[in-house]
């Protein structure tokens, strides 16, 4: 997953109703961002570096107050000095500039989900109408083990280009090793990366979220590592030139580099573990990361001779050279996984998208959908959602199923999971 330009500022404020004016925060602040008059203690958003030094010394908790604001509308000091109480959170869609992207405002300790990570989760699952429960047989996920105050430090143990040298996109497989730090993840969970340095406003960069591409026991089994699938962002959704801070940072990492990692996050987009459960996976581009994790988990079990349910994968890309993990995927045994590739930019061939593939395989897809042990996972660009939904409606109709009735039922049972960006 990649990041859009920053628009939301997680503004650090002091609750005047709770503050007792003990001056501890002002004393503690290393950059003199905090000041006071005879009425209120206030924080200058332009100076605050979000170092959190002031948080734990505050005896009241008044200092631990935050509002998400469009960056150009942060509350100025003069206004804060007049407050008797904190203003409520403004509705960000009325803020004009605060479209929900995959951008995360920082600011939490271990044990709590940063408000903006929750915001992204909400945005990415909006296609299914909010987060769904996980499959009943999913393993229990650990979440929020590392917050922005105390991130885990991982070491890069590998960084490989997945796409062909002549492909237009640079997608990379990056392996992070956690050494002695405990960082347990499940397939389908995401982690946050803290790019170093400061943004144009002199603030630390926001957190970037990436899906884990390796199974729970590690990219290399029994090693304390995990992998990510990262596409170098060089243009925005409209095709205009844009330099993705998080993705370029990650793609340029060298073996041995240290990376600050927060999370893990995600309690819903998880795989079932019971025997006979089927996976129906639909993805595009780097949306393949969680599918790769789940498939790899099952492949290792398959290799050890364990009996498994069916795996069916629909994977869209511009061409085979742009498709991450194309080579390894094609080598998987047919009896293990039913793979369907769709390429939209192969010269001389008609464009084929994942929804076209779904329609073509309608009968087989419908057979899976009829089975209560089937779990559907959709991950990729937001644009794919509509086409996939339409394909499901059509193929259900053709095979005696009612998608409008089935979909909510699957959602409720934790069998339908959408994560798009």
């Amino acid at each position, binding site marked *: 997953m990649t990041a859009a330009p920053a628009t939301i500022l997680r503004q650090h404020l002091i609750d005047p*109703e*709770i503050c*007792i*004016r*003990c*001056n*501890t925060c002002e*004393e*503690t602040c290393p950059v003199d961002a905090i000041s006071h008059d*005879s*009425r209120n203690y206030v924080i200058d958003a332009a100076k605050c570096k979000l170092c*959190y*030094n*002031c*948080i*734990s*010394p*505050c*005896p*009241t*908790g008044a200092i*631990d107050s935050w509002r998400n604001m469009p960056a150009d509308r942060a509350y100025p000091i003069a206004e804060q000095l007049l407050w*008797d109480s904190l203003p409520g959170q403004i509705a960000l869609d009325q803020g004009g500039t605060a479209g929900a992207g995959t951008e995360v405002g920082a600011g939490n300790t271990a044990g709590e989900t940063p408000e903006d990570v929750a915001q992204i989760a909400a945005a990415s699952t909006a296609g299914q109408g909010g987060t769904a429960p996980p499959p009943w047989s999913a393993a229990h996920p650990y979440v929020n083990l590392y917050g922005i*105050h*105390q991130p885990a430090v991982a070491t890069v143990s590998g960084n490989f280009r997945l796409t062909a040298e002549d492909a237009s996109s640079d997608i990379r497989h990056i392996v992070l090793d956690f050494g002695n730090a405990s960082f347990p993840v499940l397939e389908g969970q995401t982690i946050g990366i803290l790019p170093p340095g400061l943004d144009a406003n002199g603030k630390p960069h926001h957190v970037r979220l990436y899906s884990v591409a390796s199974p729970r026991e590690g990219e290399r089994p029994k090693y304390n590592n995990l992998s990510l699938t990262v596409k170098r962002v060089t243009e925005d959704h409209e095709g205009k030139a844009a330099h993705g801070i998080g993705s370029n940072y990650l793609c340029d990492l060298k073996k041995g580099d240290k990376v600050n990692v927060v999370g893990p996050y995600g309690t819903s987009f998880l795989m079932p573990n019971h025997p006979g459960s089927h996976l129906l996976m639909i993805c595009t581009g780097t949306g393949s990361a969680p599918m790769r994790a789940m498939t790899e988990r099952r492949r290792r079990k398959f290799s050890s001779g364990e009996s498994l349910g069916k795996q069916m994968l629909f994977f869209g890309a511009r061409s085979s050279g742009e498709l991450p993990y194309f080579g390894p995927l094609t080598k998987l045994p047919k009896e293990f996984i039913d793979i369907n590739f769709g390429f939209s930019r192969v010269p001389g061939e008609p464009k084929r998208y994942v929804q076209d593939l779904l329609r073509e395989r309608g009968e087989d897809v419908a057979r899976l959908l009829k089975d209560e042990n089937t779990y559907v996972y959709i991950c990729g660009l937001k644009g794919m959602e509509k086409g996939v939904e339409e394909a499901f409606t059509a193929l259900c109709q053709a095979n005696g199923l009612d998608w409008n009735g089935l979909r909510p039922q699957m959602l409720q049972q934790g069998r339908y999971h959408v994560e798009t960006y």
Partner: protein
Amino acid sequence: MSIDYSQKIPNNVHLNDNKTLQRALEHWQPEFINWWKDMGPDGSQNFDVYLRTAVSVDPSGWAHFDYVKMPDYRWGIFLNPAEADRKVNFGAHKGEAAWQEVPGEYRSNLRRLIVTQGDTEPASVEQQRHLGLTCPSLYDMRNLFQVNVEEGRHLWAMVYLLHAYFGRDGREEAEALLERRSGDADNPRILGAFNERTPDWLSFFMFTYFTDRDGKYQLCSLAESGFDPLARTCKFMLTEEAHHMFVGESGVGRVIQRTCDVMNQLKTDDVAKIRAAGVIDLPTIQRYLNFHFSVTMDLFGADVSSNAATFYTTGLKGRYEETKQTDDHLLNDASYGVLEVDDGKLVTIQAPYLNAINEKLRDDYVVDAKAGIERWNKIIQKAGIPFTLSAPHKAFNRKIGPLSAARISPTGQVVSEGEWTHQHLHWLPSAEDRAFVASLMGRVAEPGKFANWIAPPARGINNQPVDFAYVRFN
């Protein structure tokens, strides 16, 4: 600057490297524990209390929360990190390097300052030792115990200075700190306010608001000291002191909140009806406020004081925010306004600034104390009740300094002895007021339950819910 907890005495001052000092303090430690068991919180030594302990003195490490039995609390010695090339910032030695050892000629004055500050710490523990028996909630009980253990920690801070820098005299003073008793006729604590009783929780909240705030101002001025170990000690103590004022401000605020709620439910401002409903009427709260404010005014010392001038000139004790003052930090030719009774009126006369250092600190304190009273008034305003709390005049009910000779009303009018006798029960809590407040005190010790006379807090401690089991009985 992490704290070495593997030592018998947790510390960040490399105690291990100074065996003589370490042995002296290890000798004092069991005496402290004995004092704590005798004079610390009554009947609560076996409770598991959800307390904050410093695990390092940097901002991320000093607020570590866990259950602990109070006698097992890791009292220790924590100094703020040293500031490189720190200078003496005021007085005759201004501009010289800050002292890392006690200058011989200031030894007795410095010792006196440290002993006076240190004496207040165990004193307040003694004053508050019975309050756990009448706590209005587990949340409040925990806050009380947090205040108590941190006062104990502050005693350690001062005792460390006495042991480390004052030799045998210092060790004797450290022992005497454990021998004096609050309110004891034969061997009382040094300062008057610390020999008063803290008989009920309203008094406790008022004490932590007003009197601990005096502590804040004293520590702030000692944190400016040219004697660097004292400055660093006091800087770290200030971070802990903030919690005490929080307990006071939010405590009184919650009492006011509850009273306003009941007044609105009953639609009355009739004191008798309000008291019958089991909450504390606002005029009584005002009288408690007057009492604690005025008692605390005396803690700043005489209005004109040659001792204060000496402490300042010799670089031992500065002003509040000394380095933020824009004058010459010598004050030889400056003057400052102090109050005097002249011809039946209070008038301000100009005194040499150096002699008025106490008054300057008192004035700084008053500004801060009044700001909190205004926040209490907002609670009352929000409830739509036409009543305003106010700080009495700083000359009201003084027992120290020239103003103690006069009778002065809360609004600053000089009144006759006759009028004082007639009026003072409207100004200060009467025996009847105290008896009424005492009648409300009864222990509430179920998680999430609060006594009828106080509202629950807006937030729990360390982001825990309000109904968290802040104290576990064993």
